[in-house]
């Protein structure tokens, strides 16, 4: 499904007009004129559609798009730590200036040059390769997640926490790049807390949902966070999935991550409306176990979170289906004589050992 952005059509018109007018002489350099706005051409897979961003040179970066009200960030080579730096930069200054959104393009040219000319391999990011699920039961919402974090073929964390706190009544499971899910959920959790103070009310799930999806959409899919958001508020229990590009679904049961197909098969066969709390937890645990045992990217333990009106229970390591059985519980003991002595050589240390009374030698 290829979407044509409205700005693309206007850009094509601009290009046609520019071609018709021919090359113009440089207008800067004459007194009283400002240099024209720099425009960046970003490499896209489709060469027919160019997205141009004009950045005004005023020391501050105000990213404006030609006739496109919503356009912002695009990065040819995303660095998860750079994105994170933008996300968590503390706001300096006393005035509440409008936030400058979008990606900082300063290093894009350098990255491109490094990749092309010097063959620098852009570092990969830690993906979670996950199974995360959620379902709505009679009194609320149950969320579940596995606990394996992978870095390529290596298990980086055998017992990580993928169910993140958003509000006392809203929790969020995260799949995708671990740094992105952490940063985005922390940021929205912080915003929700400020909102609660300002309004004096409990946070709503749709508020968290809208904050998440607007943020992810702004970054055009480069913040690789796929989330299952669930909670109970004054309007009832809610369960949503959020995709990295910013689209959302509202569902009675949902799965995300590399193990989502295994988990979804369990849900599709066993889910029904109006489950009780025990049935809900059992079904979620079963779905996550399906992901753990059938998907390489998921593994270790099952975390479950049950949210009902007024009460949230975070059951960390609800199931431990992968215990370490190869370690001897008694420990290891090696009796004398088990190692064969092949030869013995005794070297005398110098008999004169001088003990220096060095009180001043060690300085603190």
């Amino acid at each position, binding site marked *: 499904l290829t979407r044509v952005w409205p700005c693309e059509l206007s850009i094509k018109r601009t290009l046609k007009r520019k071609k018709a007018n021919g090359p113009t002489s440089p207008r800067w350099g004459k007194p009283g004129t400002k240099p024209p706005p720099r425009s960046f051409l970003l490499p896209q897979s489709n060469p027919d559609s160019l997205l141009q961003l004009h950045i005004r040179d005023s020391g501050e970066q105000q990213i404006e798009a030609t006739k496109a009200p919503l356009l912002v960030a695009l990065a040819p080579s995303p660095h998860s730590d750079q994105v994170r730096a933008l996300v*968590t930069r*503390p*706001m300096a200054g*006393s*005035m*509440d200036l409008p936030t400058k959104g979008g990606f900082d393009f300063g290093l894009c040219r350098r990255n491109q040059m490094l990749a092309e000319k010097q063959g620098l391999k852009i570092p990969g990011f830690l993906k979670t390769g996950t199974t995360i699920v959620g379902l709505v039961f009679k009194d609320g919402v149950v969320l579940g997640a596995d606990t394996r974090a992978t870095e390529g073929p290596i298990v980086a964390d055998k017992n990580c926490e993928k169910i993140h706190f958003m509000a006392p009544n809203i929790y969020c499971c995260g799949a995708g790049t671990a740094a992105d899910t952490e940063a985005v959920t*922390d*940021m929205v959790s*912080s915003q929700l*807390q*400020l909102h609660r*103070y*300002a309004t004096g009310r409990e946070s709503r799930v749709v508020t968290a949902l809208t904050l998440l999806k607007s943020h992810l959409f702004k970054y055009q899919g480069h913040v690789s966070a796929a989330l299952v958001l669930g909670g109970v508020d004054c309007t009832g229990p809610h369960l949503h999935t959020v995709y990295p590009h910013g689209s959302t679904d509202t569902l009675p049961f949902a799965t995300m991550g590399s193990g989502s197909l295994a988990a979804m098969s369990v849900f599709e066969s066993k889910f029904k409306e109006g489950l009780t709390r025990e049935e809900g937890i059992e079904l979620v645990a079963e779905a996550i176990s399906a992901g753990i045992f059938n998907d390489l990217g998921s593994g270790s333990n099952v975390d479950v979170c049950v949210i009902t009106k007024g009460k949230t229970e975070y059951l960390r390591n609800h199931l431990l289906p992968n215990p370490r059985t190869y370690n001897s519980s008694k420990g290891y003991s090696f009796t004398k004589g088990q190692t064969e002595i092949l030869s013995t050589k005794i070297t005398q240390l110098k008999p004169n050992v001088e003990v220096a009374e060095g009180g001043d030698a060690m300085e603190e």
Partner: protein
Amino acid sequence: MGDSQYSFSLTTFSPSGKLVQIEHALTAVGSGQTSLGIKAANGVVIATEKKLPSILVDETSVQKIQALTPNIGVVYSGMGPDFRVLVRKSRKQAQQYYRLYKETIPVTQLVRETAAVMQEFTQSGGVRPFGVSLLIAGYDDNGPQLYQVDPSGSYFSWKASAMGKNVSNAKTFLEKRYTEDMELDDAIHTAILTLKEGYEGQISSNNIEIGIIRSDREFKVLSPAEIKDFLEEVE
């Protein structure tokens, strides 16, 4: 800020070495409604009188005592709108601190940052100092704490303090009644009595506001029903 016509500060020194705008701000505070705070051995109490301009005003819509974090609360004397701006800024700073250090902000840090904001407005272009003095009460790992922040940006830690209209009488009253090992409930009674001293009219659960923080570190504003209980105990 640099391009505006007011890129110079409106707060300038007088020949005697005073910042007259800050003096005027303190006068504005001094004509505001009385507020006070008392630090007890196991908690802090802050209170203020809530005199509304007319009986037609819905008193439930007015909240003079606000929470900044779950364990820090604040009350003011002076201009209400300035207070709202400071509360908003302080809450945001507390959140930013948490996001940066993954630690709930200690009371002293929040006081320092709020005071820094108030000082900025005495030295920036085109702005005036805040017309409020704040009493910030909190309970963290260093125990219960009470700080007063002035429009100039200076802050002090107090065992008990008062601000606003009746400040001298209230402070004298507090000096007489304060003891080091006061319990929080005694402190609440003392606070109510101090407010009663300077109150013009009949004190009731609807025209005072009390905020407390105990050793459970949860700041809460007392409901009118709870205030009524304490008032009856005092009578």
